[in-house]
């Protein structure tokens, strides 16, 4: 006698299992009360609803055979697991069923259903269920799933539940259709191709997942989103225990294809990502870590990465995660057999917002790093024929060999390096070799071979690095330069070519947080005179537009030496003065107050050649007019009293002056001297653009050979 219900509704919190249990209890009560008076029993339900699950026209029928054996038939016209995952014409037939006072069993059952996208679904199942609700099991045999197959099982008892899923060659397109309705497919991912094998086991209790274990194999999968894969074949095994926080063990290999992964952190304004392209040997990895339940603390017991032909690494980290990451302790051991590929693959993505974002590197390196409380405590860095070139042309080093070691302990450790060549901007530094000693987070040079700088030599008296690895790391150098050709130096700086030599002492040079400052003064010997550079500082030395500030005092340069080797033309006499408030931006002057003139006490001979007089006219693109025309042209040299020129550069123009003023301008060369012919050179106007002035100087230096 069939029983009928219009609708079953449930109080909030009632579990589906309770519903099933109730139905079975009712069936069993009817059976026991009727004392097997019926050979068939049926139950029809118009509709069952539970949260987002619903079933329409549910029919349950038991056909009794001999003893406890029974045939169980369950059908529903519609079963909706979610609004977009709906099965129709569901039918389960269990010929080998049995029903006892304690247990409902169904072995060799068969189920059928229709799905709008996947067509007919059918397969074998078996189930058992203790009627007191204390235990149960359902096993779904393998069925076709797209071009692959899938099987699953679920068991539960008083201790919890365990589910298993085995998928073989499951197409990503098929998987997407299955999981997308549940919101599992990540947004903005598309163009998925390839297939995966899945063998996973999930254990839990009530709604909590306690343990997930399994293996996933991908077969030439592709997908595109924030992360991406192209023809990726890989195998990953995992074992995640979620009882107290998350204990995660995983490992596997990327056998072929390409993968791009963003770890989800920001470095400056950039979200770095690792792009891997695997062709020959697989990339292998293994991780063992613990995350606390609040996801605020991570203990990475071990992360091993082996990227054949590129690097191997082992990383151990204890850190607190939050808005800022605090590293309590980290140990990193890394060997990069190809430092170039290591940089582009693993390092460069994290340096994109720094000044080291465009390096070209070759060679090999090996390092061990220990960080404690966010500070570098130990560094052991070995180089093997390392070459590094900054793509923006700011620095380079070639053939670097040796080691650089840093310790925070009191017992010193030693290391040493050598290189075949180096350079800062276009100033070449030759081969060098040095020995280092480190203790208390400081590195000192204990021996140094003088190295060539351009055509001179750099002699280092003291060199130390303090607070290595901290934000306030400072490099301090005391030393001197033996003669460097001014021609090479000015050419390297892309300034108007000057001749002569540059020598000098450099004391108290410090580099910290991108800025270079010279505490003392740089004394240069130029053209038998003295040049003192004071207050030198360079802000953002390796930045996009370094800014240099300095004051320069010039004392009694010999003009004959200055001009004798220079195509400007010969001038005899001395010149003194200075360049104050010099400011260069991107190595080009933007402001200075320069004034150079014959010293008042100059007793040397004052003569100027006709060529020099003519070239004074070049300076400023003709802003200067000389009285060297007419009959004076028959003389090759002239006497003069004083010579002087000044320029205050601002807003791209030079406000010019000389040793005296005229109504039309200023006097560059005044009449004077013992012997005729005397000459006076006047400048007209008071202003010339810096560009025109530099062009004038370049014209002079390019029209004639620089050295005679």
């Amino acid at each position, binding site marked *: 006698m069939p029983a009928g219900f219009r609708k079953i509704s449930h109080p909030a919190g009632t579990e589906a299992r309770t519903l099933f249990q109730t139905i079975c209890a009712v069936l069993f009560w009817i059976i026991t009360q009727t004392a097997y008076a019926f050979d068939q029993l049926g139950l029809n339900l118009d509709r069952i609803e539970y949260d987002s699950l619903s079933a329409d026209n549910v029919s349950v029928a038991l056909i009794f055979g001999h003893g406890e054996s029974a045939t169980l038939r369950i059908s529903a016209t519609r079963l909706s697991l979610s609004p977009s995952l709906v099965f129709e014409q569901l039918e389960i037939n269990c010929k080998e069923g049995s029903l006892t006072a304690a247990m409902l069993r169904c072995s060799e059952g068969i189920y059928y259903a229709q799905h709008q996208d996947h067509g007919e679904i059918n397969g074998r199942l078996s189930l058992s269920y203790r009627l007191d609700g204390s235990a149960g099991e359902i096993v779904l045999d393998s069925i076709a799933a797209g071009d692959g197959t899938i099987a699953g099982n679920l068991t539960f008892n008083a201790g919890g539940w365990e589910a298993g899923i085995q998928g073989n060659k499951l197409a990503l397109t098929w998987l997407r259709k299955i999981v997308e309705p549940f919101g599992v497919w990540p947004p903005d991912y598309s163009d998925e191709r390839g297939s995966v094998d899945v063998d996973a086991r999930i254990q839990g209790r009530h709604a909590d997942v306690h343990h997930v274990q399994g293996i996933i194999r991908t077969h030439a999968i592709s997908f595109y989103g924030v992360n*991406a*894969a192209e023809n990726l074949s890989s195998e990953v095994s995992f074992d995640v225990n979620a009882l107290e926080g998350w204990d995660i063990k995983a490992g596997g290999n990327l056998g072929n294809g*390409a*993968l791009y992964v963003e770890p989800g952190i920001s470095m400056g304004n950039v979200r770095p990502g690792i*792009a891997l392209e695997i062709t020959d040997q697989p990339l292998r990895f293994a991780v063992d870590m613990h995350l606390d339940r609040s996801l605020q603390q991570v203990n990475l017991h071990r992360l091993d990465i082996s990227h054949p032909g590129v690097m191997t690494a082992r990383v151990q980290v204890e850190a607190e995660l939050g808005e800022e990451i605090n590293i309590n302790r980290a140990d990193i051991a890394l060997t990069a057999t190809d430092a170039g590929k290591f940089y582009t693959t693993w390092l460069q993505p994290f340096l*994109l917002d720094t000044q080291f974002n465009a390096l070209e590197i070759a060679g090999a390196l090996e390092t061990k790093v220990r960080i404690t409380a966010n500070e570098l405590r130990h560094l052991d860095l070995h180089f093997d024929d390392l070459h590094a070139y900054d793509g923006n042309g700011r620095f380079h080093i070639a053939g670097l060999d040796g080691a650089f070691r840093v310790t925070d302990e009191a017992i010193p450790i030693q290391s040493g390096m050598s290189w075949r060549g180096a350079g800062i901007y276009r100033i070449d530094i030759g081969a060098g070799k040095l020995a280092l000693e480190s203790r208390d987070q400081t590195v000192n040079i204990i021996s140094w071979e003088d190295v060539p700088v351009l055509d001179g030599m750099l002699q280092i008296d003291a060199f130390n690095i303090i607070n290595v690895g901290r934000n306030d790391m400072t490099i301090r150098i005391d030393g001197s330069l033996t003669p460097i050709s001014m021609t090479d130096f000015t050419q390297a700086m892309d300034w108007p070519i000057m001749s002569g030599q540059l020598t000098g002492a450099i004391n108290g040079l410090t580099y910290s947080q991108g800025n270079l400052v010279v505490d003392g003064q740089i004394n240069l010997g130029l053209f038998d005179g003295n040049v003192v550079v004071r207050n030198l500082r360079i802000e953002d030395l390796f930045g*996009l*537009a370094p800014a240099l500030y300095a004051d320069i005092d010039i004392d009694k340069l010999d003009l004959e030496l200055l001009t004798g080797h220079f195509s400007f033309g010969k001038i005899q006499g001395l010149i003194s003065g200075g360049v104050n408030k010099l400011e*260069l931006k991107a190595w080009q002057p933007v402001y200075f107050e320069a004034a150079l003139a014959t010293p008042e006490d100059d007793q040397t001979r004052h003569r100027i050649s006709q060529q020099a007089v003519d070239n004074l006219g070049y300076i400023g693109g003709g802003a200067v007019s000389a009285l060297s025309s007419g009959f004076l042209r028959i003389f090759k040299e002239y006497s003069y009293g004083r010579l002087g020129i000044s320029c205050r550069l601002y807003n*791209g123009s030079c406000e010019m002056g000389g040793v005296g003023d005229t109504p039309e301008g200023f006097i560059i060369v005044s009449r004077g001297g013992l012997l005729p012919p005397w000459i006076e050179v006047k400048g007209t106007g008071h202003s010339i653009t810096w560009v025109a002035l530099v062009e004038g100087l370049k014209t002079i230096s390019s029209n004639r050979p620089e050295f005679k």
Partner: protein
Amino acid sequence: MTYTREFRLLVLLVFVTGCITVNVYFPAAAAEQAADRIIKEVYGDKLEKMQPDTPAQPDDQSSYEKLPEQGVATRLLEFLVPSAYAQEANMDISTPAINKFKASMTQRHNQLQPFYDNGAIGMDSKGLITLRDPKAVSIKDRNTVNQLVAAENQDRNALYAEIASANGHPEWESDIRNTFARRWIANAPGGWFFQDTSGSWKQK
């Protein structure tokens, strides 16, 4: 009678000049012109394909507006109170640092252009660029694009700060950034993506 009028004019002039506080407001029109010059140089031959520019709006923020009559008093006032208006035509964009950033961006633009064209990169509302559609970039190009975007944004940030600094008003940086943000979009060819002030992406 004439003396009386001139005296009154003088008194008025003294009063007016004595009361005026010269606030140098951001010269919006000059900044737009400066931005357009730099942007057109950076975009290079894309200029040919450009849509007509949005005409620069008259500066409604200047502290001083020309009076209808250019009388004696007006001319005197102009002489005595050098107006911010004079700065409109003279925003300095020729410092060595600006030239360096401009050259660097111009050189980089050819590499960025395919990614503007396919919609991978878009212009945001802060005068920067961003990777808006990662799907449009193959894996082998991902880090190249990330590097180009980061370098371009470094240059742009430095450019805005340098223009403000070079013109003696570091506090103008955000105004200059906003001006550039609008002009990058206005000067861009059709089809490129940009972010409006609400953060939504639109295709030009």
